């Protein structure tokens, strides 16, 4: 966000927690202000401190990034009430779609296929009836959820109650809202998502698709664009996503996630009302800066491109490099990065806040960098990514790089046979 703003000539104030005083964005910003202690609840989730800081620094617009308050309609609403432009959807869009259960209902209204599922429930007795009606296996999902949290698979009725309790608790801790709904759990599927962008007045563009099937515990590890599949199915999904977004006059960047089965049937899963971690792969194949567009649309300048000028070229792959130890069940291992060297060369992009000497705080995500490789074909992109990962030096912490290399060297990955169960099934 900082880079996009600077290129547009916009000054940046970074609000940081005490853990992030020496983070790269805080150091690069025109101004920075400490808004709370390391635990996110007191800082990055602290609406009062954030608004106070914005007003005190003369801020005009707020970019919430991803995670934390980025899909919090109350925060978006409060920004507007205090004459701060919220760079993202309107508060109503967030509450309509950000609530995963109500999003399903809207999808149905917009003629978008959805997985068989339920509305949110609170009583265990109701849960059993709903699960039997949908048919096992079912997936429990948090209404306020995202990032794979508050989700559980339940295969038999005797496992239902304890999984509901676990999911509710995880949702309460992660999102402050324990509401749960359920869907039929479809297996051996691809997770394909469509990047859309609306002007808030009824016009919506799509920037094609991404395949995010490579996941561990519902957290994406590797993403690519475009997805591998029939042109027809991909086009139909893009049109469905645009229909959904137009239905609610969506404003800003958003992503519609679909599950696609082996027969080319797709089902709407959820929509994320924010810019996503994996947006760089879309930017690489379209040559378009989505984050700059967020600033432009928020400033009232309207969409700067038309659908016919969005033409994907080549193939892009992104790996999420986490500070975690693959030999210890990928346990996060924060610590100090003592040496750091990023890959370079044609078709390589690195988005990271890390630098040599940087201490990774233990309070947040273990993601330390995104490395993206673009090339004219998927095979070349894989080769380029392998080259780039081998060139990367990160010392002082364990990282997931060795694991990523195993994934991209895997024969099923290379053939494009990737489903959401890839890691369990193909990586042994």
């Amino acid at each position: 966000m900082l880079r996009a703003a600077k290129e547009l000539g916009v000054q940046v104030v970074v609000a940081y927690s005490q853990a992030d005083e020496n983070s790269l964005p805080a150091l690069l910003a025109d101004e920075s202000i400490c808004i709370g202690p390391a635990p996110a609840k007191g800082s990055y989730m602290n609406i009062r401190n954030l608004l106070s800081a914005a007003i005190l620094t003369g801020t005009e617009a707020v970019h919430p990034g991803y995670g934390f308050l980025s899909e919090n309609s109350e925060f978006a609403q409060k920004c507007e009430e205090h004459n701060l432009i919220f760079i993202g959807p309107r508060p109503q869009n967030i509450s309509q779609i950000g609530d995963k259960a109500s999003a399903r209902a809207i999808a149905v209204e917009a003629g978008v296929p959805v997985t068989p599922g339920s509305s949110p429930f609170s009583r265990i007795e109701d849960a059993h009836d709903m699960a039997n009606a949908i048919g096992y296996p079912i997936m429990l999902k948090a209404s306020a959820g995202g990032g794979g949290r508050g989700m559980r698979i339940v295969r038999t009725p005797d496992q239902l109650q304890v999984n509901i309790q676990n999911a509710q608790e995880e949702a309460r801790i992660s999102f402050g809202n324990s509401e749960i709904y359920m869907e039929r759990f479809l297996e051996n599927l691809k997770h394909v998502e469509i990047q859309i962008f609306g002007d808030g007045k009824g016009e919506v563009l799509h920037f094609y698709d991404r395949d995010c099937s490579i996941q561990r515990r519902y957290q994406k590890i590797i993403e690519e664009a475009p997805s591998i599949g029939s042109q027809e199915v991909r086009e139909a999904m893009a049109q469905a996503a645009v229909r959904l977004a137009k239905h609610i006059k969506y404003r800003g960047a958003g992503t519609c996630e679909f599950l696609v089965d082996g027969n080319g049937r797709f089902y709407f899963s959820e929509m994320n009302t924010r810019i996503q971690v994996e947006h760089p792969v879309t930017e690489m194949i379209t040559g378009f800066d989505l984050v700059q567009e967020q600033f432009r649309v928020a400033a009232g300048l309207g969409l700067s491109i038309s659908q016919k000028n969005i033409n994907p070229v080549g193939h892009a792959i992104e790996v999420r490099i986490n500070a975690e130890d693959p030999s210890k069940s990928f346990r996060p291992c924060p610590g100090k990065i003592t040496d750091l060297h990023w890959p370079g060369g044609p078709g390589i992009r690195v988005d990271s806040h890390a630098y040599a000497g940087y201490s990774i705080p233990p309070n947040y995500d273990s993601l330390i960098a995104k490395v993206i490789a673009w090339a004219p074909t998927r095979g070349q992109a894989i080769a380029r990514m392998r080259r780039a990962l081998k060139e990367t030096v990160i010392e002082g912490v364990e990282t997931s790089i060795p694991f990523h290399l195993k994934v991209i060297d895997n024969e099923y990955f290379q053939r494009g046979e990737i489903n959401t169960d890839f890691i369990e099934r193909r990586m042994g």
Partner: protein
Amino acid sequence: MEIKDIKRLLDAISNSDVSEFSYEKGDFRVAIKRQTGQSNYENGSQTILSAPTPVHEITQSPAVRDQDGLTSSVDEVGVPGGGLVNEVTAPIVGTFYLSPAPEAPPYVKVGDQVEEGTVLCIIEAMKLMNEIEAESAGIIAEIFVQNEEPVEYGQPLFRIDPVH
């Protein structure tokens, strides 16, 4: 007052129309404020952190900082880490005021002796005035910020030296 007395007090208040109550005797002090279904935003400070020091939060109608009609309640706002041992640091982001009102004398000056709970200053955030109190007795050795200066979380405000 023992725990069972406090529990009875809480029950009595929940079952009544009383929304705020405070009681002080010697160095025992309790203040209770009922949540009235305000949004998380308004009560945000109550869920932030555990706190060794209570901070009085004075809620008032928007705009002017005016002493009349203030109701006070005890909210737990965390004391930020990172400052030196006898530094008082800002527990929230806001504007620092050394006096209760523009024409009034400052709460404290350098050299003043303060007790635990003495109000040192106000930090105003989003039209809410928050009184910041001393955590322990001592003498005001230094005041690091000026009246009406914006302060960030954790910013040092005062140094209080222990009484010899």
